[in-house]
């Protein structure tokens, strides 16, 4: 009797253990990206940009050319790469602090120029790598080490909705928000990342997928609770939807 492989590790994913905490969304998204690189035959032309944050060493997990970028500057770095190598498939991977706080200028301007690369934006409402500080996307009332009594919107402002901001710009080709709340959510996320990748391959300009992602460690929940929290609370503030899709045009 011969064995049939129902599931294998994607070729574009390195055969190493990841350093992420149990229940973290990064590993899931890394895998989805690697599967799509395989399925869309992108591995050989990918130049990826890793952020500063928990996914700082993403280059150890994908089997693709990859550079680091200073905190928040990945969209500018990707701009330089893509302008010099327009045939490369340029992937930017950023967290909420990186993309929506320190790097918001680079974020907005790369999108506004319609730079033809794809950003995968992990929104887990927290700074994980530095130990659970308040993020630009931390929910009202959420306890973090720098909002120890909960985010007080009167003095700390409100969580920033990035897809809604992107949606005010003319140039982006694909803008969507999705969530890792369930196996269905993961499958849906993969579908949307595929569309974003297709937009870049077709030369349609800037594409972005924001992924509401669990951080059980600093959400101070177990992994199942964290996924439920995303569905019940996080997606209530950050509506999950496709904001723009020009891939059909």
């Amino acid at each position: 009797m011969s064995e049939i492989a129902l599931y294998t590790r994607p070729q574009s994913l390195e055969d190493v253990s990841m350093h992420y905490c149990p229940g973290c969304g990064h590993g899931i998204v890394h895998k989805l990206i690697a599967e799509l690189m395989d399925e869309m035959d992108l591995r050989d032309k990918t130049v990826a940009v890793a952020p500063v944050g928990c996914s700082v060493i993403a280059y150890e997990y994908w089997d693709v050319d990859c550079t680091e970028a200073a905190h928040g500057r990945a969209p500018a770095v990707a701009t330089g790469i893509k302008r010099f190598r327009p045939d490369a498939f340029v992937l930017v991977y950023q967290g909420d602090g990186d993309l929506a706080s320190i790097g918001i200028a680079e974020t907005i301007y790369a999108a506004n120029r319609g730079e033809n690369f794809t950003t995968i934006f992990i929104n887990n409402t927290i700074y994980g790598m530095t130990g659970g500080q308040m993020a630009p996307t931390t929910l009202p009332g959420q306890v973090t080490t720098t909002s120890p009594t909960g985010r007080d919107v009167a003095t700390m402002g409100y969580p920033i909705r990035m897809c809604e901001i992107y949606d005010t710009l003319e140039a982006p080709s694909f803008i969507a928000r999705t969530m890792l709340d369930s196996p269905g959510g993961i499958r849906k996320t993969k579908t949307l990342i595929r569309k974003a990748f297709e937009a870049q391959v077709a030369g349609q300009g800037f594409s972005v997928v924001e992924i509401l992602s669990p951080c059980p460690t600093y959400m101070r929940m177990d992994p199942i609770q964290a996924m439920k929290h995303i569905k019940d609370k996080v997606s209530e503030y950050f509506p999950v939807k496709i904001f723009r899709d020009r891939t059909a045009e």
Partner: protein
Amino acid sequence: MAKRVLMTGNEALGEGAIRGGCDCYFGYPITPQNELTAYMARHMPDHDRTFIQSESEIAAINMVFGASVAGARSMTSSSSPGVSLKQEGMSYLAGCCLPALIVNVMRAGPGLGDITPSQADYFQATRGGGHGDYRTVVLTPATVQEMHDFAAEAFDIADRYRNPVMILTDGRLGQMMEPLTLWDKEAAPPAKPWALTGAAKRIKRTIRSYYAGRVPENNARIQATLRKIEQNEVRFETYMMDDADIMLVAFGTAARLCRGAVDCVRADGIRAGLLRPQTVWPFPHEAIAGYCDQLKTVLTVEMNAGQMVEDVRLAVEGRTPVRFYGTIGGDVPSVADVVEQIRLLTTGSES
């Protein structure tokens, strides 16, 4: 002799960079270097190369980083306050061993200061400027011709060592026009077997400065490169030094003034000469030290409160008195001012 053209220093620098093979230019407006950005906006597209006016100096240096990662000859230019903003990116370039050209057309600081010419960013330029152990090769042109030539050569130096190179100049050299002969050597960028191109038919490449637990190895590699640069890339020019017993040390605009002053005092029999560093990192320590035996005094002239003079003192190691004359806050000395300082030295030593 090839035909001479008249250009501003800023424009000549831009044309030099283009002839040196600059693939990508990224910049943000700031006086007194705007003619350079405008020149690149006009001419880079003619050569089918990339020009972007970025959203900030920070974005510009990171676009330079990205283009360099992809194997391009890339550059940015700014003036002092803008160059402060680029320091983070320069540290990353150095940490990731990436070639790039950064131009600082210096103006008066600190803070917003003024748009008047200055040399007050010497420490920032020669000590690395950003965080961590690194240095940037710092070229200091004194003529519009050198603005042009150094820009053309800078990419070769940057590529040879995989290290950022800076051209450190000032608003006066940037704004003035002088005749120059255009660079006519064909740019020959080396192969870059480290660049990120997509990993087709090969193992993947990673560009990084983050090496938890292994930073000493990366830094040792950088330091070894810097020692090579120190051995190979020191540049300077001397003027009337054969019999000099007073040596002026100055770079850029200040060096031009010193040369004029040497001519003036020589007419009166004062044996002054000039040593002009064309690189301030690596610094011509040995060349300066070599003159100590014949000198009564060294006079360092700068458009700042005294920065390069510290390197001169390190070179001289106490063997000769080192004096300093400087103007601050965007003031530029006249030739007559420098002449007066030299005369004060000679009367001082005779009395």
